[in-house]
């Protein structure tokens, strides 16, 4: 019988493999609320070739593998439900190329969002990517694998829409190039005008292959960036406010949010919107367009722009926004989790009311945040609760609140984002049978031994 540990050591070296209780404990869980399950091995490869060897070994021996970035989905997507090998990809963090004129970057599969931002800031100050507000350690590959969103999502769609090519190690160990890079040295298109195979991997939560390289579209970075905050106490007006703002095509990122604490925020809905420009004139022109677009609400006194204290501006302009992460310690307990259903923006009022209701019903602290996707094509509605990791009762109440929240969002026509295994099951129960059949066909053909992140997107 083959010695798996020894084989893994031969592939990556003994410093980067562990069967230690400490690693098995840590990699059995994420910071969210899903039940832990230990892997049998943890391994941290540095190259595509090492990943390939690990996958071939696992496929031959029919050992489950779970690819992992920073593990910050908070919904347990990197928990090895069937044990096996967790492949921590963060040692693969080289930024391989930036094509300035074609505005794309090629990065290794464990490259963090923070590292790409810093690299661009230092070397290509006119370029940027759609950075999410998750901590900077989250990886670009994992983010597109879960259809993440970021600062440019209102303008350009999901971050996965901004992929311009992939290198994937398939569950059977072959390395596949996806997009223009399959026949050209350039990574400018993930599919078109070829058959778009990127859909076999994006959104599959690591169940169909391991992304070892990602091509990512970059966008112009303006010299100046500012923030405006529009406030109303009427949640029913938010869809129209967002619609009008997106109509201006003058705004970078738009989020609508509400929370009970601190008291200054209670009872109000806030729309944070960012404007950018290369000159004062450009910035002021955009600001005027934005203000004009909401004139009706200002005139009717249903809302108004709130003056942002200079001391508060850095918090808003931060990328990623540290304050999103510090929500985890509101209860001095180091935990939060959120479901992020994607829904129509017209559903904002009912979802917002439901979240407030859930907070009261389960006696948990909530935060609601909707990020506009595209020109009001949809929104990610974050149903977020903070909890104290040392308070099992509070954790259970948050679990229940989340379950009720996502069920409600599905009933409102929403679809799940980064769903827990339970939410995946709920989603599949509602899916068209032929869609499910197609998913099953794809999964079984790509992963005949069922080794890739088993338990996720598992079609019965």
């Amino acid at each position, binding site marked *: 019988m083959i010695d798996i540990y020894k084989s893994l050591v031969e592939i990556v070296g003994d*410093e*980067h493999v*562990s069967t*230690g*209780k*400490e*690693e098995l*404990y*840590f*990699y059995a869980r994420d*910071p969210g609320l899903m039940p832990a399950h230990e892997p049998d091995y*943890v391994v*941290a490869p*540095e190259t595509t070739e090492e990943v390939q060897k690990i996958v071939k070994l696992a496929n031959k021996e029919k050992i489950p593998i779970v690819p992992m970035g*920073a*593990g*910050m989905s908070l919904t347990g997507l990197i928990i090895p439900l069937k044990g096996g090998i967790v492949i*921590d990809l*963060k*040692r693969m*963090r080289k930024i391989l190329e930036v094509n300035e004129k074609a505005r794309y970057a090629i990065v290794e599969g464990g490259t*963090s*969002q*923070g*590292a790409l*931002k*810093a*690299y661009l*800031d*230092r070397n290509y100050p006119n370029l940027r990517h759609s950075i999410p507000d998750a*901590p*900077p*350690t989250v990886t670009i590959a994992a983010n597109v694998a879960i259809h993440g969103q970021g600062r440019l999502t209102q303008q350009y769609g999901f971050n996965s829409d901004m992929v311009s090519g992939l290198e994937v190690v398939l569950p059977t160990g072959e390395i596949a190039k996806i997009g223009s890079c399959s026949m050209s040295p350039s990574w400018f298109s993930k599919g078109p005008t070829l058959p778009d195979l990127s859909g076999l991997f994006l959104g599959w939560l690591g169940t169909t292959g391991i992304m070892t390289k990602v091509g990512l579209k970059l966008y112009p970075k303006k010299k100046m960036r500012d923030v405006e905050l529009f406030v109303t106490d009427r949640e029913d007006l938010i869809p129209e406010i967002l619609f009008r703002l997106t109509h201006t095509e003058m705004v970078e990122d738009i989020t609508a949010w509400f929370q009970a604490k601190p008291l200054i925020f209670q009872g109000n809905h806030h729309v944070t919107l960012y404007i950018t420009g290369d000159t004062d004139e450009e910035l002021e022109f955009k600001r005027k367009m934005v203000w004009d677009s909401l004139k009706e609400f200002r005139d009717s006194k249903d809302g108004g722009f709130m003056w942002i204290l200079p001391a508060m501006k850095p918090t808003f302009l931060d990328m990623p926004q*540290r304050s999103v*992460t*510090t929500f*985890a*310690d509101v209860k*001095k*307990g*180091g*935990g*939060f989790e959120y479901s992020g259903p994607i829904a129509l923006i017209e559903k904002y009022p009912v979802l917002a009311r439901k979240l407030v209701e859930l907070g009261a019903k389960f006696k948990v602290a909530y935060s609601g945040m909707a990020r506009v996707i595209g020109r009001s094509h949809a929104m990610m509605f974050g149903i977020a609760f903070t909890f*104290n*990791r*040392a308070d099992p009762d509070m954790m259970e109440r948050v679990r229940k609140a989340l379950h009720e929240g996502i069920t409600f969002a599905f009933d409102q026509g929403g679809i799940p984002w980064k769903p827990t295994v339970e939410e995946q099951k709920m989603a599949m129960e509602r899916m068209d049978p032929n869609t499910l059949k197609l998913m099953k066909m794809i999964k079984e053909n790509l992963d005949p031994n069922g080794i890739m992140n088993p338990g996720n997107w598992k079609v019965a």
Partner: protein
Amino acid sequence: MEYEEIVHRCFRCGYCKFTEDYHDINCPPYLKFGLDTYAAGGRMWLINAWLNHEIETSKHYAEILYLCNTCGNCKEHCVFTFKDDLLNIFEAAKAELVEKGLVPAAVKDYLQGIIANGNPYKEPQNKRGRWAEGTGIQPFSDQEFLFYVGDAGSYDESGKKMAVSVGSILSEGGLSIGILGSKEKCDGNDVKALGETGLFAKLAEENIRLFKEIGVKKIITLDPHAFNALTKEYPKLGGKFKVWHYTQVLAMLVKDKKIPLSGYELKVTYHDACYLGRHNEIYDPPREILSAIPGLVFAEMKRNRKNSLCCGGGGGNFMTDVSGLGKDSSSRIRVREALETGAEILAVACPICYKMLDDAVKEEGAEEKIRVQDIAEIVLQAVQS
């Protein structure tokens, strides 16, 4: 365990791994092993698991705790309000292992060396002042300043060279300095970082008593680790002295033109020692000294000041060597970063950094391209040239 009410609050978000602008990983053990358990968030979750009896004390658990270099990058970049206690938590967790006698063998050896010999090098006490022979530097009697050299400056070859340079240049600048020689004791900074708080208290109290007995009022330290203990910990135990790191004093002497600088026509980069920089926010004096030298071209490394990458020697690791060298060791990464600047000299202000980086230059096979020099050594050459 002390601080146990805080440990569960870590979100393991990973801000602590990075530099401020996130351009690279800045946690030495995590850089080397690439597994999350070796980063600050990993340690926090493991300590919490240990407190909750979800994991047992093990050799590997102890290794993970003792691989921390106490560099303070996590404390600098953590986004939570408990950030200032991160290193205290790690120290408390190590103290639990010390209490149970479950520290790694190399750590035990280090601590026993101090208990038995007064230093981790296991050298006799009477050798402490030998570095000063022939320098004209006298034992402390009624001089204005005590020049406190510490273990590395007394026994390590690089450290001794550094002690001679610093002692000589302080004398050249007209300062009245004296040393303790064979009366000097370990400052205990790294003993505390290793979790042996009882031994630290004993060392500190003995030092404080001695300093008071012989009338010490002002102290200049060679070693940033000693500077840290003397400025932050000794006052809590009644040891209130005026303390400077030698680069602070040297910067004043240079500014006041007490030291005649001729020239030093080389390209130099500077490595911030964690216990000088992040722990005590002394970033400018070494740079002011280098910038004042005619002909010297100064180049910053990508990671500098509060984002500096640790040499890997903190927390006793320069002696215990739990992490060892290897291409991903932070000392070797630091040397490669220094080479990127085109510098011919990698300047340091700490005997531990000196030793770690000097070894790393050899491991990198870069002796022909770059060499490690202490700031005082550079100044001496600038005086003599």
